[in-house]
């Protein structure tokens, strides 16, 4: 396994195999972010693929400026999602529940299927009711597990603004998910 720097260097010179290794390493987190933004499997897959195609074209411009490679990919994904929203002007409806039925481990610790389903629906609904900026922050913070510093780089907002946004988002979610919090 080549080192990360070596892979970037090779990919910069057009080495598709090296780029393939980077792709394999980072596909899932980028897909996960775009899945929660679009809530659509196929669109998330297409957008993730486009993120990597754009990354391949721009990898020559990527320099180790201190920003992690994954944050750079998130920035591309963030911009791509904004473009997608502008073009579509609306969000597609959520996918059918069959997707979730195949996802083992969703809301672990909850034994009863009905509770699991209710909890998932409540969480999903609560996130959907947040503003677009709040949704993005919550996904980057709690699903993608990015720091405020990284989210600031990705979204172009200040860390203070993000903390304030996060505070409001958590307050709203807590109100909407009161039952879940009482359970935990």
């Amino acid at each position: 396994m080549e080192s990360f720097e070596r892979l970037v260097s090779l990919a910069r010179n057009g080495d598709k195999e090296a780029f393939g290794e980077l792709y394999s390493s980072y596909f899932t987190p980028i897909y996960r972010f775009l899945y929660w933004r679009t809530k659509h499997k196929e669109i998330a897959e297409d957008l993730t693929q486009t993120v990597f195609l754009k990354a391949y074209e721009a990898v020559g411009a990527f320099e180790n400026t201190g920003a992690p490679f994954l944050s750079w990919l998130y920035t591309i994904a963030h911009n791509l999602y904004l473009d997608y929203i502008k073009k579509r002007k609306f969000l597609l409806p959520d996918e059918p529940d069959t997707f979730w039925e195949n996802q083992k481990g969703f809301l672990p610790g909850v034994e009863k299927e009905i509770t699991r389903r209710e909890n998932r629906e409540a969480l999903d609904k609560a996130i959907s009711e947040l503003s677009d900026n709040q949704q993005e922050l919550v996904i980057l913070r709690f699903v993608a597990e990015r720091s405020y510093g990284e989210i600031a780089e990705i979204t172009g907002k200040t860390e203070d603004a993000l903390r304030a946004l996060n505070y409001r988002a958590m307050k709203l979610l807590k109100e909407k998910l009161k039952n879940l919090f009482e359970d935990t």
Partner: protein
Amino acid sequence: MDKTEEQFDRLFKPLRVVTPQTSLLEETLAMLPVRDGVTIRGSARFLYLDVFRYTIMVGLVAVVLLLSPLMRGGDPFDELYALEIEAEEISQGIDDGEFSVVIDYVSDDMDLVGEDIIN
């Protein structure tokens, strides 16, 4: 991470298990363009440099040509006036179909040079 954030962290944990059902790796690799950008950029930069150098050279030559009569002590206004008259005469000669004016100048100049050598 404070207590509330920790609660949210636990709450969102299940969302992190979402994984793509396909990686699309082969398809994406097949879609990657052939990287020839380095060569194109390199030659483009080379061309720009050449044009820049050529422009500088032409500019320097023009400056030297323009300044050379002045360096010999000529008055810039007289030089410009002389150039203007000369251009008018040539132009007039061409209009009249007489190229002899130009030829005369050349032959006169050659005679002068010849006389200088003899003397």
